[in-house]
């Protein structure tokens, strides 16, 4: 069971305080968008073996959403960061590169 640190209230807590929210950094495609874009927004997920960015809500705590960078195989957590961003912040990317030199980077 994971341990995560909520960047919004500073609490490190076990997984049962949080609610998972799937892949992070999805771009919303609304009315008039192309079918492929809408399909990708709604249904296509990276589901990688390895470095992954995902949404979590501190559901039993401060109620805020945040994002986590995590290895889906080893469960190593590279870091958590605020949800108000469209891509992983530089320091998180650095941390991942440090731990996973072979990582192809965020795309």
């Amino acid at each position: 069971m994971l341990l995560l640190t909520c960047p919004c209230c500073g609490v490190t807590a076990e997984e049962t305080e949080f609610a998972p929210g799937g892949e992070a950094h999805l771009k919303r495609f609304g009315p008039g968008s192309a079918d492929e874009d809408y399909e990708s927004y709604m249904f296509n997920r990276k589901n990688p073996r390895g470095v992954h960015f995902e949404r979590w809500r501190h559901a039993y705590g401060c109620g805020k959403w945040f994002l986590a960078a995590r290895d889906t195989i080893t469960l190593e957590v590279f870091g958590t960061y605020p949800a108000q961003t469209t891509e992983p912040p530089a320091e998180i990317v650095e941390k991942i590169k440090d731990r996973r030199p072979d990582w192809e980077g965020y795309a």
Partner: protein
Amino acid sequence: MSENLTSALPNAEFAGFVALREAGLQGMITLRGDLGSKALSKALSEATGCALPAQRKITTKGDHALAWMSPDELLILCPHDKAPKLVVTLSKALSGEFATLANVSDARAVFQISGPGWRDALAKISPVDFSTLAPGDLRRTRAAQVAAAILVDGPEEVRVICFRSVAQYMFDLLKTATAPGSEPMLYR
């Protein structure tokens, strides 16, 4: 209206290895807004006498207190009958601000736990390292299957706040956790 008001679980109490009782009616106001705003801290200080609390802290002045709930939310504690007026006062003071006030006094239940074993009791229902909590701290967490806020009022005094609808569950849960003979002797 001031007669026949009922709290969530009037007069509920239990003597386990800590003392447990429902705390009765408690005024509570949710304030959402920019906690960094000077206008906001000034308005709060004037209306309650309390300083703005730091992250996960409670500040108290007399029968008023401010509890940090999230980066943009405070819980204002006050006497139950003062809450409606305090909402009006603060709304006026914050009229230019992007801030939202709501009286939530009746949306919740408050339980008071007294005794040196409070950490041992709560350790059975919440995934929290209670050695890290001291008076003046607030921790929002899970109590078994419901959300709870734990307010540490003193070395041997805490309050547990939950939603009103689950007051009976919370009381039964706390009764079970504090039943005599089940002291885990974890925090000593």
